[in-house]
């Protein structure tokens, strides 16, 4: 197995044991990038020189016997909506094409402290708004399994990078499924932690009450490793949870311990909306758990049908406010020839924001407007509470809920771009999880007749990531799906 195909944890161990140098690992990553990146287009920016310099520094520290972190020397990619001191932070938007943050996100600092080598920043739907990465204003990313198809979104670049083995592990962000759905489409593991588990400081906000940063990886172990590095309270993020309330575990340590007496919940009526191939893969996955001794219980999520409507009110309302600062005056592109002061704002925004971003700003602005607030925003918050309670009730009867990640496998590029509602509806299985704030994980669980990956979604109660990764690991240990890789890996 070539270096670029190793998991992060294997690579780290070999680097720590000095069987392999970080420089060699970075070299292998860039060899694969040179080969596959022109086809897949996962990255908005690459930091070749900086990565080699950093790898050499890690190698030097290892040679000198200095302490190194949990990801020492491992090449890592991060979504381009995370602020870094190096390179631009574009959010996949023309409006921020030249934005260079003078500070770095807490997760970036934690990655660097852990010794990771950040090789590049990955493509995304503009401001993380989308489910296919087609809304990027800067770059086209394709699915490594079928270049005619989308990689999913909005963390499509990160999912593609891991699937095409351009790096072993990457960070994404998930507001309505943006880690799990591209992980599913690209055949990798994606983990959205509980809201509050990972600091959002330095993540350019889309829907602040829903956004959460998480890993995309080849294996559950790598996802757990990455989560251990990035999780934890951050005084700079008031919504990150106090560690006395929800302690951070070493998510790798007990990973191979199966959860005894496991009860998995399924909502058959809800799952019925998925494609045949997705449903049969789910059924097979349930069988795997039964084979491991789990009981299956049927659960109900009575308000889940309202999730998409509530989500598109709450997320867009927050987005309309979060994106107000990109106006050509404070941040972002400025129109070259404004006729007057007001045009600096209106034309800058008109010229540089993409269609989907404008649509969501309009939706959110409308939802918050005087006279509509109660009917839309307030009602959506009530729905959100009902959905949260649905999950709390469901988890009284089971330890984990299994469901599809998306109703279909990766769809064709351009297939849904003319029908935003159709695109929104494809988030049906992931969105409620963000509204409820609970953690969710997507793991490869099959291939459809066209050979495209299918994801299994596993959900557990808030702040139970330790259990979530163990339950996911039970599936992974019993199956081979995570070892499947696209032809482009070679």
């Amino acid at each position, binding site marked *: 197995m070539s270096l670029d195909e190793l998991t992060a944890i294997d690579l780290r161990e070999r680097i720590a044991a000095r069987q392999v140098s970080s420089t060699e690992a970075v070299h292998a990553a860039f060899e694969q990038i040179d080969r596959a990146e022109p086809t897949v287009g996962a990255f908005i920016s690459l930091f070749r020189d900086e990565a080699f310099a950093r790898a050499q520094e890690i190698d030097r520290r290892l040679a000198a016997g200095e302490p190194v972190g949990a990801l020492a020397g491992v090449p890592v990619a991060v979504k381009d909506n995370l602020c870094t001191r190096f390179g631009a932070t574009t959010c996949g938007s023309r409006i921020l094409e030249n*934005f260079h943050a003078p500070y770095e996100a807490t997760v970036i600092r934690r990655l660097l402290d852990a010794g990771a080598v950040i090789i590049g920043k990955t493509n995304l739907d503009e401001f993380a708004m989308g489910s296919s990465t087609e809304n990027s204003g800067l770059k086209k990313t394709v699915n490594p399994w079928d270049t005619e198809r989308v990689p999913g979104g909005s963390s499509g670049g990160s999912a593609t990078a891991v699937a095409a083995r351009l790096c072993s592990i990457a960070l994404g962000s998930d507001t309505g499924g943006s880690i799990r759905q591209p992980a599913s489409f690209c055949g990798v593991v994606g983990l959205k932690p509980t809201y509050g588990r990972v600091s959002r400081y330095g993540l350019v*906000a889309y829907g602040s009450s829903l956004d959460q940063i998480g890993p995309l990886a080849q294996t559950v172990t790598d996802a757990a490793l990455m989560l251990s590095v990035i999780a934890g309270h951050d005084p*700079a*993020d*008031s*919504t990150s949870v106090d560690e006395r309330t929800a302690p951070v575990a070493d998510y790798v340590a007990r990973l191979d311990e199966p959860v005894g007496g496991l009860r998995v919940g399924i909502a058959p009526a809800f799952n019925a909306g998925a494609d045949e191939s997705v449903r049969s893969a789910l059924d097979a996955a349930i069988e795997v758990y039964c084979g491991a001794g789990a009981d299956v219980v049927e659960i109900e999520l009575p308000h889940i049908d309202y999730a998409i409507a509530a989500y598109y009110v709450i997320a867009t309302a927050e987005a309309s406010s979060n994106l*107000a600062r990109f106006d050509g005056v*404070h*941040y972002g592109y400025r129109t070259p020839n404004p006729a007057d002061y007001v045009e600096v704002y209106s034309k800058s925004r008109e010229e540089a924001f993409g269609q989907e971003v404008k649509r969501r700003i309009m939706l959110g602005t409308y939802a918050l407007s*005087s006279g509509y607030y109660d009917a839309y925003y307030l009602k959506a918050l009530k729905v959100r509470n009902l959905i949260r309670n649905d999950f709390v009730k469901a988890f009284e009867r089971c330890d984990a809920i299994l469901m599809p990640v998306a109703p279909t496998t990766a769809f064709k590029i351009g297939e849904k771009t003319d029908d935003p509602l159709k695109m929104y509806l494809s988030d049906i299985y992931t969105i409620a999880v963000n509204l409820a704030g609970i953690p969710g994980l997507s793991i490869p669980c099959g291939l459809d007749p066209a050979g495209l990956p299918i994801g299994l979604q596993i959900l557990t109660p808030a702040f139970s990531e330790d259990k979530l990764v163990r339950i996911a690991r039970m599936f992974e240990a019993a199956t081979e799906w995570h070892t499947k890789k696209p032809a482009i890996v070679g």
Partner: protein
Amino acid sequence: MSDLSYKVIVGLEIHVQLATRTKMFCGCALSFGEEANSRVCPVCLGMPGSLPVMNKQAVEYAMLAALALHCEVASFTKWDRKSYYYPDLPKNYQISQYDLPLGSGGYIEIPLEGGRTKRIRLIRAHLEEDAGKNLHTAGSFSQVDLNRAGTPLLEIVTEPDMNSAAEVRALAVELQRIVRYLGVSEADMQKGHMRFEPNINLLIERAGLQFRTPIVEVKNLNSFRALERSVAYETQRQLDVFLETGITMQMGNKSTRGWNDADETTVLQREKEEAHDYRYFPDPDLVPVTTTPEWLDEIRSRLCELPVARQMRYVGEYGLSDYDAGVLTAERATAEFFEQTVVAGADPKRVCNLLTQAGLKLANERGCDMSALGIAPAAVANLAQMADAGTVSATAASTILQAMTETGKAPELLAEEMNLVQTSDAGELERIVDQVLAENVQAVEDVVSGGKKSKKARGFLLGQVIQKTKGQANPKVVSEILDRKLS
């Protein structure tokens, strides 16, 4: 026209800058006069991805002020985003409090003449972050200084309970005194720590009918003088306009005016009130605040007697004049120093004179408060007692007070050293009086004859005696001797 009467009705919106160590939602120090954009960080610049973190000290200062203003402090309050596009507002929304303000209701007692007070009711008091400043210094463009962005402000809104420019000023002065007393704001007008926006209209009665003139909001006043003058000016202007046009208050005819400091007039800024939609919604980046009873009790323990209550007490209990009581209670440090001297045995009126005539002048000159003059209240009480006993004159007492601040010596010692002890020895003084009477026969005659020159001549003789003793004669004793000799 003779049956026309009118009354001005004023409500105030006041922004008070809190004297916290750092800004409302980041770790930057508060700023005044520093180089533009030197006290900023990703958070107060509204950098993409940055997040606010609540300053607990600001919340506690606001709670303390709310309690002092008799507000009901919310047990649960939260932060809301107020959206509008403006260059000095980095995020294009301001973090404020909308439907659950920290303080609701409440009132401020303002002092009127003759020891009376008037209660001005408050609607609310809430916390918010300040914006930056637009600078229009260069020709074809403007610049923005964001040093002030994120500074904690307490916004206080009153009911329209004030009925004269003087009352409006009294409220502003009283609020300044209160927040300074509590130590929650420096309330320095020069530094823009207090900014006022009065809403003004008139209630006019003519021929048994009532009319209300359209409400005018005057924006951004930052001195007591401008506040008072603008209300006075608006009163007259609105009366004139009404008499000329008869236009009365209607939906949508509220207007906004600015204050022109140079010619002391208000200038129309916006004809009709724009239907501003700020699209308030709870800020998802911040967690709501729960004020537990224990926390509230802890804050309540930091309260002190408020200036107006103190002022009234000084008038009632110590017999001080309104004016003197006002001067002594203007600053908490002065009032507390004064009270400590009274506790140490000084006569309130005597020590009041000493402090208002000498102590405060010294404190002013040195730019400090009474407690920082380096004199102990007990020593000042001693000095006051010496003046009462006639050991030193009132003038000498002031001189000694100054010397005490310079040398730290006891007043008795200084009186000796500076030869300021008054001679009250009747025998010694009688000898000098006899000498003066012998030397000024004409004056003696004038006094004895009781004519219109009598009073002046007596004063002359008294002065001569004082002069001969180099000012050390106790005038009271001399006066008694003169009376006896000349009767």
